[in-house]
C-alpha cells in the first residue's frame, strides 16, 4: 500500500445536493469516488494525484434503473451487477448487460458503477462502446441544474471530457427503440475473465430486403477514446453484405482507428482483431436475415 491514509480526506455529505454544492464551492478540489474500483487502485499504487475525495457511493439520487415509456434511465451509481441482472436491460439493450457481466470479476461488478466507467474514461472501458452504439444521452447535474447531452462527443480526448469541474453525471438515458435489431458485442482480453480489453466491439444492425437499413458500431481500446464508427455506418447503409463489402468494412475500420502498442498488446494485433470483429458482426447481420 503506497499511500498514507493520513494524507487524504474523504467526505460523504450524503445527498446529491450537498455533493454538488461542495463541488461548486470548491471546484476542482474534490474527486468524486463511487465504487472506487479505479480510484482505489491508483491510491494503493501511490499514484492518485487527488488528496481530497468526496464519496458518491450509495447516493439514492444516483441509484436505480427507471423504465419509462420512451427511455431507460440508468442512475450513474448503478453497479455492473445491477445492470447485468436487470430484465429490461437484458431484453432491450443487451450489449450493455453483456458488457456489465464481463467487466472485472463479481466483487468488482458489485462496486463498479456505470457513471464511474464513463468518467474514468479508460479507452478500454467495457461499457462505453455499448453506450455509443445505443446513442446514449447523459444527464449531468450541478448547482446550476441538469443538462442533457449526447454521449457521442462527450470524450474530447484521452481522459478529457465535456464535464465541468463542478458537474456529476446523474443518469444515463437510453432509448427503447432497439428491439428488432441484431445485437452483437464481443470483448477480447488476455483471458476469459477479469481482463482489461485489448479490443471490444458493440454493434447493432437491421436488414431490410437483404440490405443494411440501419447500423451502429462502436469499438473500444483502439483509440484514445471509445470510438463510434460513423463513417463506417454511412458507408454500410443500403448495401448488401457481400465479400467486397466486408473487405471495404475492414479497410474503413482500419482507417478510423488509432491502436497503440502497450503493455497488454500491439497496434497490429488490435487492428487485425478490430477488423475481424467488424467482419464477424456483418456476417451475423447477414445471417440474421435467414432466421428472420
Amino acid at each position, binding site marked *: 500500500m503506497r499511500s498514507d*491514509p493520513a494524507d487524504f480526506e474523504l467526505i460523504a455529505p450524503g445527498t446529491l445536493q450537498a455533493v454538488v454544492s461542495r463541488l461548486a464551492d470548491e471546484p476542482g478540489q474534490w474527486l468524486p469516488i463511487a465504487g472506487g474500483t479505479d480510484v482505489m487502485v491508483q491510491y494503493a499504487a501511490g499514484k492518485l494525484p487527488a488528496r481530497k475525495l468526496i464519496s458518491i457511493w450509495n447516493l439514492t439520487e444516483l441509484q436505480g434503473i427507471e423504465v419509462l415509456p420512451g427511455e431507460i434511465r440508468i442512475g450513474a451509481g448503478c453497479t455492473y451487477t445491477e445492470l447485468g441482472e436487470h430484465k429490461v436491460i437484458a431484453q432491450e439493450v443487451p450489449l450493455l448487460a453483456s458488457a456489465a457481466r464481463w467487466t472485472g470479476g463479481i466483487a468488482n461488478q458489485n462496486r463498479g458503477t456505470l457513471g464511474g466507467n464513463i468518467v474514468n474514461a479508460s479507452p478500454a472501458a467495457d461499457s462505453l462502446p455499448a453506450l455509443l452504439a445505443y446513442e446514449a444521452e447523459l444527464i449531468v447535474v450541478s448547482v446550476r441544474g441538469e443538462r442533457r447531452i449526447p454521449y457521442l462527443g462527450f470524450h474530447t480526448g484521452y481522459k478529457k471530457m465535456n464535464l465541468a469541474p463542478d458537474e456529476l453525471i446523474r443518469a444515463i438515458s437510453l432509448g427503447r427503440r432497439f428491439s428488432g435489431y441484431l445485437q452483437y458485442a464481443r470483448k477480447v482480453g488476455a483471458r476469459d475473465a477479469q481482463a482489461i480489453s485489448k479490443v471490444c466491439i458493440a454493434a447493432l444492425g437491421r436488414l431490410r430486403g437483404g440490405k443494411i437499413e440501419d447500423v451502429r458500431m462502436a469499438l473500444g481500446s483502439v483509440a484514445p477514446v471509445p470510438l463510434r464508427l460513423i463513417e463506417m455506418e454511412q458507408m454500410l447503409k443500403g448495401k448488401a453484405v457481400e465479400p467486397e463489402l466486408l473487405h471495404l468494412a475492414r479497410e474503413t475500420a482500419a482507417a478510423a482507428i488509432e491502436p497503440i502498442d502497450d503493455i497488454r498488446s500491439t497496434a*497490429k494485433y488490435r487492428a*487485425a*482483431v478490430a477488423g475481424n*470483429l467488424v467482419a464477424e458482426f456483418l456476417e451475423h447481420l447477414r445471417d440474421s436475415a435467414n432466421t428472420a
Partner: protein
Amino acid sequence: MTGAHIIGKSVPRKEGRDKVTGAARYIDDMSLPGMLYGATVRSQIPRGIIKKISFGSQFDWSEFVTVTAKDIPGKNCIALIGDDQPCLADGKVNHPEEPILLLAHADRHVLRKAIEAVLIEYDALPAIFSIEESERRSQIVWGTDNVFKTFLIAKGDVDSVWEKADYIVEGEYTTGAQEQLYIENNGVIASFDRELGITVWGSLQCPYYVHKALMALCNLPAEKVRVVQAETGGAFGGKEDYPSMIAGHAALLAMKSGRPVKIVYDRLEDMTATTKRHPSRTHHRTAVSKEGKILGGEIDFTIDGGAYATLSSVVLSRGIIHAGGPYYWPNVRIRGKAVATNAPPHGAFRGFGAPQSLFAMERHMDRIAQVVGLSPVEIRRQNFLKPGQTTTTEQTVREEIDLGKLLDRALELSDYPAKKARFARQNTKGSVKRGMGIAAFLHGAGFTGSGERYLASVVGVEGCADGTVRVLVSSTEFGQGTNTVLCQIAAEALDLPYDCVAIAQVDTNQVPNSGPTVASRTAMVVGNLVRSAAIGARQTLTGGGLLSDSYSPEEFRAACRRHIAEHGELRSYARYEAPEGVFWDDEKYRGEAYASFAWAIYVAEVAVDLSTYSARVEDFVALQEVGRVLHPILAKGQIAGGVAQGIGFALYEKVVWQNGRMQNGQMTNYIMPTSADLPQLRVFFEEMGNVHGAYGAKGIGELPMDGPAPAIVNAIEDALGTRFDSIPLLPEDIFEAVFADGVTDGKTDGRR
C-alpha cells in the same frame, strides 16, 4: 489394526481447519511487541557504480534505522552455492531492483515515503539483457566470460551418426521467464537478542538454507540462529533461496535496532525484485533413420541466470539431464550452459530446468515426425525407453515401465484418434481451428546424483507421554500436503490412527535438517525416512519389552509413558543412506541421476479462434505413473495445480522486460489463468511402485509442470499448420505467424 491402510486414503489435511476458518497465521498476520517495519532501497538501473547516496531533508533520519553493506557483521553475501550474490550492494549494482540500503521505522506509511526520499546517483555501465548478448561478450558482467556454469553429457559416439542418418532434423526452441505468483508475497519477521541471537519467522521452503545464510551474514554460530517457518501461502520454488535475502535484511535491521523487524513485500516489489523461472534456449540437431529411430544427436541447452549465480548451476543440471526426454539415445552430446545478464537473478520454479528442456524435446519430436513422415504418436513409440535400456546419462531403466501402453491409455482417455480425424475435417471451414497435441516425459525426483547423499537428511519421530506422536522434519508445508502425508506415513508405520500423529512446527531449534523442501523429494525421500524413524521408535518400545508386536493406541500410549518415565524422552532418528549399487560420476555427469523417475503422457485439445488469434485449452488429459498414490486428493491436487501453471507457462504468462526490469509487475498485467480459463483437467494415475520411495511413492510435485506447454503448442501447430517454437505463445504471436503464413479462416477474407 486401527492404523493399517491409511496410505492410499484421502485423510483430512492436518492444518486444513485453520485454513478454512481464517485462523491460519501467515507472516503479515503476525506482529511482535515493539516491532518496526523494514523496507528496501533498490537500484533503479541495471548496472553501474554507486556514486552518491543522499537522504532527503524532509525527514529526521535519526528516527529511522538505516543499514548499508558496511553494517554487515559477517560476509556480505547470501550464502548458497557460489556465494557471489551480495546481501546489499556495495558500491556496484548489477541488476534493476538490486538491494542497496535498508530502512526501518515504526510507521509503515512513513517508511514508504522515506524509501522514496533516498536518492542514489550512479555512473551507469552498459548492461546486457539476453542470452545472445551475454554470449557475444561485448560486455563482461560476471566472472571472466559471463558463464556461470557449463556441463557436458556425452554418451556413445555422436560424431559417427551423421553420415548414417537418413534425416538430420534441427530446431531451436525458447522459453521465457515465468513468475511463481504465489498469492502470499514474501515476508519475514526477525528479532535479535544478545543472548539468544537471531530469530526469524518467515514464509519459506527451506529453513536450514536461511539458517546457513544468516550464520555467514551475521557472523553467528549455529546455536545463535533460529529459523521458524510460518504458514506459507504458496511457494513453488520462489521461496527456496529468496527468503535468505529478505531474512538477511530483516536480521540486519533487527541487530542494528535491537527491535523486531517485519519486512513484507507488496506485489509490485515481489514481482520485480525476486526470482523467476530461467529463460532458456535449446538447440537440437538429431540424426534419424527412415524408420524414425533416433540414431543420435546434439542438444545445446542454455539458460539465462540473471546477474548472480545463485541456483543456476543446479537448474542447469536438471535441465540437461531431462533434455533427452523419455527416449532412447544410443549416442548423444548434451551441452549445458548458464549465462549472466543484468536481470534480477533467476531461481527455482517448479520443474527447475526440466520444463524448459522438455518443452524443446517434445516440440522437436513433432518436428522429427513431420520430417520423417510419421505421426506424433508413431515417432514416440519408435523411440520410447524400454526396461533394460539406458538414459542419456547411462542410467539403466530398471523398472518394467511400458511407455507404449501408457501412450495407448492416454490416447484412449483423450479420444485422440477420433478427435484428430474430426478436427481435420472441421478445420477446413470456419474461424475456429482445433488440434490435438501430445507430450511424453519423465521427471526424476530427489536431488541429482550424489545430492541426497550430500544432504544427509535426518528425520525424527517422537513418542509423547500422552501417546501422540510428533514428526520432526524441516520439510515445510506450503499447500502441497507435507504435513498430511508425513503424518500419514508415520501413522501407517506405527499402526496408529492418523489423529494420533502431529507434525512439529518447523523450527530449527526443534527439528533436524531433513533437507530443503524442493526437488519433489518430500514424500519420497523424507517420507521414507519418516517411515524408518517411526519403525525405529516402535522397535525401541517393542525391543524394550514395553509393547508387543500388535497393539492398540492405548497400549502404545502406556508404553510411551513408561519409556519416557525411565529414559526422559522417546525419540528415534533416521538418516538418509544412499541405496547400494547406485553410482554417479560428477565429473563425467554419468550414472544414476535419480533414484527413480515418474513417467507421463499428457494430451491437450486446443481451439484457436482466428478472429481473435486466441488459443484455449478445451480438454486436457494428464496421465502419469507415480509409483504409489499416497493420498488421492492431494495427488490429484498437485497434478491439477501443476497443469494449470503449465497452461499459464504456455499461453498466458509473459514477463515484459525493459532494460532488465519487469514492466508488468501487477496481477492486472501479468496474466495467470482464472477459473474461467481452464477446462476440466482430467487426471489419471498408474502405480507400479518404487523401491526407493516411501510406500512405493515417487515424487510428483514438479512432474505436471513439464508436459502442458509442449502438448499445447503441439496441438496449436496441429490446428493451424504453423510452427511455433517459443513460449509464452500469446494471441499477438499467433497473429504475427498466421499473418505471415496467410492462413485464412476459410469463410470471409480473414487474411490481413
